[in-house]
């Protein structure tokens, strides 16, 4: 069944078009991540799905119902915000129960749902605390709890991890992934962080300047990017791009090689100078200069390579991607 479908959604702010003819359809139970650089329209798109922003044209339907003109609370959605958006004057329990009280649910139902959500998120001992007495990670869990108790048909996450520090971000990411397994509800997740997109998504939608660049599973996008933007956006460190003319004077395409597909080879065609070595323990990243171009090379394990030394690099041709002048795969 289709949980969410967007048909020809356009959005203008004044004269600027921020979303251009967006068509997306999401299957029931899928975890879909909208990813793109800031300003690409992904948050606006999420707000249109939530009903917090009106589409200038096009329609939104959730679980088969056209909800283009419905109020946010009537759409069967729950949303988790980047800034947590907890009500500062209500305690954790009050925050989680407000929507249910608004729906006129019975006391028993409210109690039971809060207990269930609190147990799921390890919030039982914090129910009477106020948001100001919680740490960032706890606040984010309360925000998620507030979404869970409503038992929505669609969860919307607006960059929920970007206010957390790196260690907490990874834990919360795992929690969200587990939550999705437990609840099996459709989730739409917006982020600018490609790692979150790759690790969480069943399906990634890459957006740029209000246009869907490509849609697919993380590995489809990684292995078969449709254009240079998608290729460069997914994967960290990001893909190296070189003019193919370096190797073949008549070739005017752009050549892309992922950092892990480059390797050191005495007989390789690329001569480069080591600029910087990043030792990560498990991996070693080499930042090298080839003429005026900077390339990144990812080696597994620990390597001791002197800075400023000259090395020669090679790559397997089947691992290379070619893009034409417009950035499309060629």
């Amino acid at each position, binding site marked *: 069944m289709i949980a969410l479908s967007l048909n020809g959604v356009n959005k203008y702010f004044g004269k600027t078009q921020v979303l251009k003819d967006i068509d997306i359809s999401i299957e029931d139970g899928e975890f879909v991540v909208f990813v793109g650089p800031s300003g690409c329209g992904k948050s606006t798109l999420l707000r249109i799905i*939530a*009903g917090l922003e009106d589409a200038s044209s096009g329609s939104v339907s959730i679980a088969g119902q056209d909800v283009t003109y419905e109020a946010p609370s009537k759409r069967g959605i729950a949303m988790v*915000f980047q800034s947590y*958006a907890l009500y500062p*004057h209500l305690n954790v329990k009050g925050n989680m129960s407000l929507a249910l009280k608004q729906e006129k649910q019975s006391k028993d139902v409210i109690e039971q749902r809060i207990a269930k959500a609190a147990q799921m998120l390890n919030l039982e001992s914090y129910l009477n605390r106020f948001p100001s007495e919680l740490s960032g990670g706890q606040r984010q869990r309360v925000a998620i709890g507030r979404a869970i108790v409503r038992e929505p048909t669609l969860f919307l996450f607006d960059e929920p991890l970007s206010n957390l520090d790196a260690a907490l971000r990874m834990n919360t990411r795992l929690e969200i992934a587990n939550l999705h397994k437990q609840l099996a509800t459709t989730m739409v997740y917006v982020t600018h962080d490609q790692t979150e997109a790759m690790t969480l998504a069943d399906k990634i939608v890459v957006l740029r300047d209000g246009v869907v660049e490509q849609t697919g599973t993380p590995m489809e996008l990684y292995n078969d990017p449709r254009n240079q933007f998608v290729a460069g956006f997914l994967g960290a460190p990001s893909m190296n791009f070189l003019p193919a003319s370096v190797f073949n004077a008549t070739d005017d395409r752009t050549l892309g090689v992922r950092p892990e597909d480059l390797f050191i080879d005495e007989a390789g065609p690329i001569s480069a100078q080591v600029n910087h070595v990043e030792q990560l323990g498990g991996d070693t990243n080499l930042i090298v200069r080839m003429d005026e171009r900077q390339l990144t090379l990812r080696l597994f394990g620990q390597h001791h390579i002197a800075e400023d030394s000259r090395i020669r690099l090679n790559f397997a041709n089947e691992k290379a991607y070619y893009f034409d002048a417009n950035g499309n795969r060629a």
Partner: protein
Amino acid sequence: MHGALILYTLIALFPVFVIVINSFKKRKSIFREPLSLPDAGSFSLVGYETVLKQGEFFSYFQNSMIVTVVSLFFILLFGAMAAFALSEYRFPGNKWMGLYLALGIMIPIRIGTVAILELMVSTGLVNTLTALILVYIAQGLPLAVFILSEFMHQVSDDLKNAARVDGLSEYTIFFRIVLPLVRPAMATVAVFNMIPIWNDLWFPLILAPAEATKTLTLGSQVFIGQYVTNWNAVLSALSMAILPVLILYVIFSRQLIRGITSGAVK
């Protein structure tokens, strides 16, 4: 730094201090030694007796209280509502409307006294407390809208949107989410408006000079004559008039301090 503040405090409080000490003295002592504290020889409650026996004092007090409290209530209510609309909704002319509402800060309402009086006469509101309340609401709204809309801009959009997703109506969002968060600003506005209203002599004198609608400030003037002024009574009346403002101020001031410093200290 502290020295300067203490000096300023002393200068600001000195007249109040002189009023209060002299209100407890005999008439002769007020003139002979205006700066000395009341002692056994000069102590007298004659001023307070006169004021309280005059009988109308409580009625004046009540009028002042009604006018101040009702005006404040509506200034805060309408001011906050207008500020919410201006800061929250995008509609054509939003900016101009905000500017128009703020314009009142720069134009003193007293310029329009004659027109206001004519208006009150033709609507039959002269010598009613309603006349005063209406004028004070008009006088207080510009600053209230200006201050409150600045503060409401700072209430995070995510919070209001979260409430919308949770199914709260715009009115519930306003009363249950936004108002509690701008409470310090509300207290600031309340204090800024309360004192001029309580102390005002101009509009009570012009719009409601009748005995039944006299306010405390106006009522105290009966003791000031053209030839003889009953200083004991004037000073006692003024001392008592300070009290309620002081009490209200103490109530609001905890909030007020947060209102003025919020954002500076997170």
